[in-house]
């Protein structure tokens, strides 16, 4: 009897009606993660650069940016999502849910990733910065030649780990109606499929997305731990 039921559910789940939609929802989950976190990383980078600015204007910029980061790291992602939803809906008619989700993910990712990037920049020993300064490096030159190459191996592992973990957080945007994996699962259950089966399968799909990437992330971390972000004498070396 149970076997019969399981087979029936399997057929429905992997049947032509569902399979296409399932793929779409998985694609959406992946797209949200990559686009949202990718944009978040770019903005986080700009933010960290902004935090280095000097002078009065720089001080104002620094305060705004610091405020942004500290605020959005202390609000649950679900609440950020709703804030973006209601915020955008108040001023823009007919904004797509996808856009709203991306904005929410972007804001959240920017706040978290900027801390990671900032820590990376600060991990470069201060003495090297002083040596650069004493040799008349401008702050941007120091950033480009000394800080960036050495901070990238420190930044990438946690940044990638964040993105991989975020795949799970995307499940929350299902609440505003975005057609990703969790949303599809809820739909199927609403249509009468077994909750046990559906959410079990959905869990397995998330697992299949998350676990290999997590392993990959750890491997990458090991690789980067041995490299040093090096700048060899490429141009001047005699061919």
């Amino acid at each position, binding site marked *: 009897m149970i076997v019969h039921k399981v087979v029936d559910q399997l057929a429905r789940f992997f049947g032509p009606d569902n399979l296409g939609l399932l793929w779409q929802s998985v694609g959406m989950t992946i797209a949200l993660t990559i686009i949202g976190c990718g944009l978040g990383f770019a903005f986080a980078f700009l933010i960290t650069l902004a935090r280095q600015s000097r002078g009065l204007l720089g001080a104002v910029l620094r305060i705004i940016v610091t405020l942004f980061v500290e605020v959005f790291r202390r609000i649950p992602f679900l609440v950020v999502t709703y804030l973006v939803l209601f915020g955008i809906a108040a001023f823009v008619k007919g904004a797509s849910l996808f856009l709203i989700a991306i904005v929410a993910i972007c804001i959240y990712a920017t706040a978290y990733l900027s801390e990671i990037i900032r820590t990376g920049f600060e991990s470069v020993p201060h003495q090297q910065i002083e040596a650069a300064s004493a*040799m*008349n490096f401008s702050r941007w*030159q120091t950033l480009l030649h000394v800080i960036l190459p050495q901070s990238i191996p420190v930044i990438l592992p946690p940044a990638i780990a964040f993105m991989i973990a975020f795949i799970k957080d995307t499940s929350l945007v299902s609440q505003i109606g975005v057609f990703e994996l969790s949303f599809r699962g809820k739909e199927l259950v609403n249509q009468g499929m077994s909750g046990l089966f559906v959410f079990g399968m959905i869990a397995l799909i998330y697992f299949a997305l998350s676990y290999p990437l997590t392993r990959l992330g750890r491997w990458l971390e090991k690789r980067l731990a041995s490299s*040093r972000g090096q700048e*060899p004498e490429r141009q*001047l070396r005699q061919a």
Partner: protein
Amino acid sequence: MHHLEVKNLSASYGKLRVLSGFNLTLSKGEIVSLVGPSGSGKSTVLRVLVGLTPPTGGEVFIDGSPVSYRSKADIKSVRDRMAIVFQQYNLFQNMDVLRNVTIAPLKIKHWPKQEVEEDARRLLAKVGLAEKLHVYPDQLSGGQQQRVAIARALALQPEILLLDEVTSALDPELVTEVLDTIRALAKEGMTMLIVSHEMAFVKEIASRVVLIDKGTVVEEGPPRQVIDTPSTERAKEFFGKILRH
């Protein structure tokens, strides 16, 4: 006219007065050594000269013309004439030896590639590291790293070289190679201000020793005179303690 003249220099770290009324002169090709207990302000003198710490008062002159540390442009022009080598070598870990030496002349001074490279190779050969051009700092010993740091400072063709306790962080066996490098530079007539505790070396190489304590000059003169037969009480106390071991 002195190559470097410092008059009444003062500097503070926050509320702490580190230097006050500090005076110093250096003639061209002269080697002066600055010695003193820790916290005396000797490293601060070098840091102020190279623009890493702002002075709170006093004047500095190079070749008779006054030098200012107020604007970025002012500091930049000072750094064009004075180079510093740090106790912790402070090499760029993400660049190999050759790149460490060539990067500033190339990217800051925009000197022509060919000349910069040839110059770097020559300098590295002079400090005895000709075979280590493409090695990274973390694969070098402390003494080797320090010699790269010296070559790096020289690559900018400074008029005056400032050496801040460059052997203090090294294991004893590695100290000689660095001292040899400095001796070679002395022979070539480089004007140098050396902060050090290596009293034997100071006696050998410096034409004058300046003892600094609590931010001011306590005693100065030829090394044998100041170190072996100090006249002030403080100097007697300091050198007595040092030379006892």
